[in-house]
């Protein structure tokens, strides 16, 4: 009898390759966007509006994935949209991690009043629906890339703080921490040298997850037209446009949706994949 779980486990390597491959492809597209995009993503041409993708009747050569109602090239807009998506993912993801993980580590290891304050803050934050909170912040801060990033960090630090706090608490109860204390290690040293390495794999998984979430939040904000200026190509903006003209030109919605879907999925699978592959301690 074959153990089916073994088959799933073997696929993990594949999942790492697939998700990593897509993200590398995306990063290259974002970096080289001005050179590889077949058209100017902002260029409107009403004579070529609503062209279908290349395999359908009525397609025009050069517009591989068709055009939207203003005649803009869908493929070029997706490639340029990748820039916004990845910038938000990297900056917002990293900043969220730094703030959230630090607070979570302090709360979980030092406990006491620091934990009281941080936990209460987390409770308060959990009382707000994140999307609504984000929209509210953008309404107050004004639109723009910086506002989007600030909004994501302000809202999502609790995701790291909660998980890292719980993990640091669990690790803090282990005897290796007592053993470091007997050896004369300082509290800060124990936190950074003993506990942090054991929490790091979790932080890594959360980081890639957060990057995917940042991409989605940016897409949602552009979907409701609250992200960066509405001219710049973003996947969320394209989806919003596509949603209104779904029956006439479905491709305007479908292709950015696929890009978004793959990106979010890849980010979430990447973290797990990396952990399974490189964490020396198998649990």
């Amino acid at each position: 009898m074959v153990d089916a779980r073994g088959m799933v486990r073997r696929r993990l390597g594949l999942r790492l390759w697939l998700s990593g491959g897509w993200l590398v492809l995306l990063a290259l597209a974002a970096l080289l966007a001005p050179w590889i995009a077949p058209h100017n993503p902002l260029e409107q041409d009403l004579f070529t509006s609503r062209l279908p993708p290349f395999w359908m009747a009525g397609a025009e050569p050069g517009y591989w994935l068709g055009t939207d109602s203003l005649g803009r090239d869908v493929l070029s807009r997706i490639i340029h949209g990748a820039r916004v998506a990845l910038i938000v993912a990297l900056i917002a993801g990293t900043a969220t991690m730094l703030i959230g993980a630090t607070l979570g580590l302090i709360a979980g290891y030092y406990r006491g009043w620091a934990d009281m304050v941080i936990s209460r803050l987390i409770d308060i934050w959990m009382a707000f629906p994140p999307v609504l909170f984000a929209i509210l912040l953008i309404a107050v801060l004004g639109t723009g890339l910086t506002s989007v990033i600030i909004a994501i960090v302000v809202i999502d630090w609790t995701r790291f703080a909660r998980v890292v706090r719980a993990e640091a608490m669990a690790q803090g109860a282990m005897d290796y921490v007592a053993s470091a204390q007997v050896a004369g290690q300082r509290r800060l040293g124990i936190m950074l040298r003993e506990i942090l390495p054991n929490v790091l794999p979790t932080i890594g998984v959360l980081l890639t997850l957060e990057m995917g979430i940042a991409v989605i939040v940016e897409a949602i904000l552009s979907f409701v037209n609250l992200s960066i200026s509405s001219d710049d190509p973003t996947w969320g903006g394209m989806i919003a446009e596509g949603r209104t003209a779904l029956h006439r030109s479905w491709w305007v919605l479908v292709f950015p949706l696929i890009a978004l879907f793959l990106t979010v999925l890849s980010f979430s699978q990447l973290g797990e994949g990396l952990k399974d592959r490189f964490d020396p301690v198998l649990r």
Partner: protein
Amino acid sequence: MADSVADIRPLFQVRDLRLAFPDMTRKPLFGPAPQTEVLHGLTFDIPRGAVLGIVGGSGSGKTTLGRVLVRLLRPTSGELVFDGREIGHLDEAALRPLRRRFQMIFQDPMSSLNPRRRVGSLIAAPLQLHGFDRTSQRVDQALDHVGLPRAFRHRYPHELSGGQRQRVGIARAIAMQPEFILADEIVSGLDVSSQAQVLQLLADLVRDLGLTLAFISHDLSVIRRLCSRIMVLHLGHIVEHSDTAALFDNPQSDYTRELLDAIPLPDPDQVWR
């Protein structure tokens, strides 16, 4: 030097040591929780070079006492004097330079060895912290001492067997050249064959390195073989503290007698009252 005052003074002098924890289950809504005392005024000495066995059932306070001795816990009151110096109420910073001199080996090596450090780093880290030189050689020496191959320094704890992990714990403690080692139930998770090996090793090290050892266990049979003095704890009190032979031949307290009577000897002729 052998006759100097410093050498005849006991390494540990413990006087009326008490420890209480706040009882969160009885905490009123406001104000502090009531205290529950788990160590009720313990007084004893550990002479230099002694191997002291600390025995008791679950809830006797033996593990708690051990953690107070190496100052993982701060006593609520009483004196804890190590080598002539009161350490019970020192803060972490003042304690730090002294920490090298009393080390601990833990019950569960899987939990007490940081899973993300290799054996070499596990042994070397405390050495570097206390400014030892030639740490690499010291790690090798420590591995030699506990009978592990030097190549083990590149392994992770999860790649070792239970007995090997416990040897790493011992190596880490002796590498610091401490005067005192506390061993907390270090063989209770091992099979009899590895148990015998680890105990043998510990006995040899104590003799060769001139260590003072406190050995916590629930098993009087194990303690008899290793220890020169035995202290029996029951519900946070010392019910008996005497010479090993004296304790086994002529136990003074009812609890000790009950404990001895309950041990199943590997002998079908033992009469079990």
